[in-house]
C-alpha cells in the first residue's frame, strides 16, 4: 500500500446511507428467504441435494437447476411458524414450471393445513418471475391455477405477504398471484404487471409501448407507480432491514378485513372512470385516481 492510500484509509470516512445499508436486491433467492426468519430457526425444504429438478428442461437442451429456482424455507418469524417461498430470478427468469410450481403450491397447502389444525403459520412469497416457463407451457399454466387456489384458501386463515423487489419483477400469471396476496410490497426498483414491456411491444407495436424506454416502463410497471395508484400496500427501500421490518408489520396486522382483490366494485369503478381515447400519463393517473377518492 502506498502512502497516499494509507492516509485515505486512516481517515474516518462517514459513509452515505446508501452504502451503509445491506441491499436486498443484490442477494440471491436463498439469502433473501433466510433474511425473513428469526436467526437460526429456518430450514430449507426440498433443497438442492434432494435433486427435485425439472424433467423437461434437459430434453430441450436447457441446463436445469437442482432446486428448480424455487426455494422453500420453514422456520419462525417473531416466534410464530412461517414458510417463505422465494423464486430465483437469475435462473430462467424465475419462471414457473411443473416442479417449482408444485413446490410453491405444496408449501401453501401445508401452511393452510397447519392453520386449519390450529398451528398459526404465516406465508411469505418473494416473487421475482416472468411468469410461466415457456419450455413447460401447459404445466406452467396449470400450476398458476393451483397456486391461486392454494393462496385463496390460505389467506382466509393467515396473512400471505408478497414481496417483489427486483431486479426481475413479477409478470404474467404470477402477477395475478401477487395481486391476490393479503399484502403486497415493492421497492422502487421492482416492477409488476400482467404483460411485460417486451410482450406489449411485440403484440401491439412500438407505437403502443417502446420496451427500450425505461422511464415509460417504470412509469407504468414500477413500484412507486403501483404504490401510488393503490395496487401495492407498501413501498420500501432496497434495504434488508426495511424489507424485513415491513413484512413483519404486515404479519402482525393479520388477515385484512377486505382483500384488495375482493373489491370488485371499486376496481371496476376505477376502470370505468378512465376515458380510453385519452393518452394517460403515469403522473396524471395517480393524480386523477387520488382526486376522485376512489383509492
Amino acid at each position, binding site marked *: 500500500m502506498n502512502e497516499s492510500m494509507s492516509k485515505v484509509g486512516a481517515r474516518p470516512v462517514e459513509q452515505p446511507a446508501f452504502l451503509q445499508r445491506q441491499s436486498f436486491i443484490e442477494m*440471491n*433467492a436463498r439469502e433473501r428467504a433466510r433474511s425473513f426468519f428469526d436467526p437460526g430457526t429456518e430450514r430449507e425444504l426440498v*433443497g*438442492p*441435494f434432494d435433486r427435485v429438478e425439472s424433467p423437461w428442461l*434437459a430434453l430441450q*437442451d*436447457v*441446463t*436445469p*437447476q*437442482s432446486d428448480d429456482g424455487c426455494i422453500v424455507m420453514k422456520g419462525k418469524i417473531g416466534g410464530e411458524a412461517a414458510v417463505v417461498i422465494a423464486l*430465483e430470478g*437469475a*435462473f*430462467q427468469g424465475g419462471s414457473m414450471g411443473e416442479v417449482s410450481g408444485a413446490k410453491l403450491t405444496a408449501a401453501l397447502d401445508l401452511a393452510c393445513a397447519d392453520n386449519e389444525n390450529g398451528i398459526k403459520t404465516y406465508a411469505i412469497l418473494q416473487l421475482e418471475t416472468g411468469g410461466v416457463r415457456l419450455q413447460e407451457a401447459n404445466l406452467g399454466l396449470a400450476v398458476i391455477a393451483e397456486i391461486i387456489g392454494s393462496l385463496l384458501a390460505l389467506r382466509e386463515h393467515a396473512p400471505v405477504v408478497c414481496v417483489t423487489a427486483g431486479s426481475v419483477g413479477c409478470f404474467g400469471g404470477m402477477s395475478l398471484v401477487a395481486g391476490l396476496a393479503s399484502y403486497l410490497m415493492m421497492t422502487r426498483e421492482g416492477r409488476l404487471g400482467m404483460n411485460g414491456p417486451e410482450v406489449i411491444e411485440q403484440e401491439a407495436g412500438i407505437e403502443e409501448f417502446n420496451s427500450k424506454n425505461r422511464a415509460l416502463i417504470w412509469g407504468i410497471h414500477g413500484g412507486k407507480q403501483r404504490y401510488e395508484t393503490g395496487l401495492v400496500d407498501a413501498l420500501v427501500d432496497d434495504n434488508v432491514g426495511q424489507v424485513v421490518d415491513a413484512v413483519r408489520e404486515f404479519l402482525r396486522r393479520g388477515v385484512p378485513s377486505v382483500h384488495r382483490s375482493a373489491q370488485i366494485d371499486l376496481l371496476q369503478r376505477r376502470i370505468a372512470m378512465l376515458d380510453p381515447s385519452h393518452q394517460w400519463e403515469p403522473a396524471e393517473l395517480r393524480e386523477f385516481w387520488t382526486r376522485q377518492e376512489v383509492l
Partner: protein
Amino acid sequence: MDTYEFDFPATRKVTHRAHVGVVGSGDLEVLLEPSQGMQAHVKIRTNVTGFRDTWKAVLDRFFSRYNGAVAIEINDAGATPGNVLLRLEQAVEGSEHE
C-alpha cells in the same frame, strides 16, 4: 446441452456437503458432497457445447491443489473458467467450514 464426467484421485475424506451458485447467465451451480470411495467424481451439464477440453483443463488445475474425496455436480450456464474455479473454491470453503 453437453454432459461430461471426470474422475480424479483423492487422498482425504470430506465430511460436509456444500451448495453454491445459480444457473444464471455466466454463472453456474456447484453441488459438492462427500463421495463413497477414495476418489473424486465430477459431473458437468452445460448449455455451452463443445468445450470438453476446457473443462478438463480447469478441473485438472483445481484438483492439482485439492485432494478431497467428493462427488461434484455442476450445472453450468456459460460461466468462464475463472468463474468456475471461484465457484469450486467457494464450495470447498463451505464444505470445510460448516
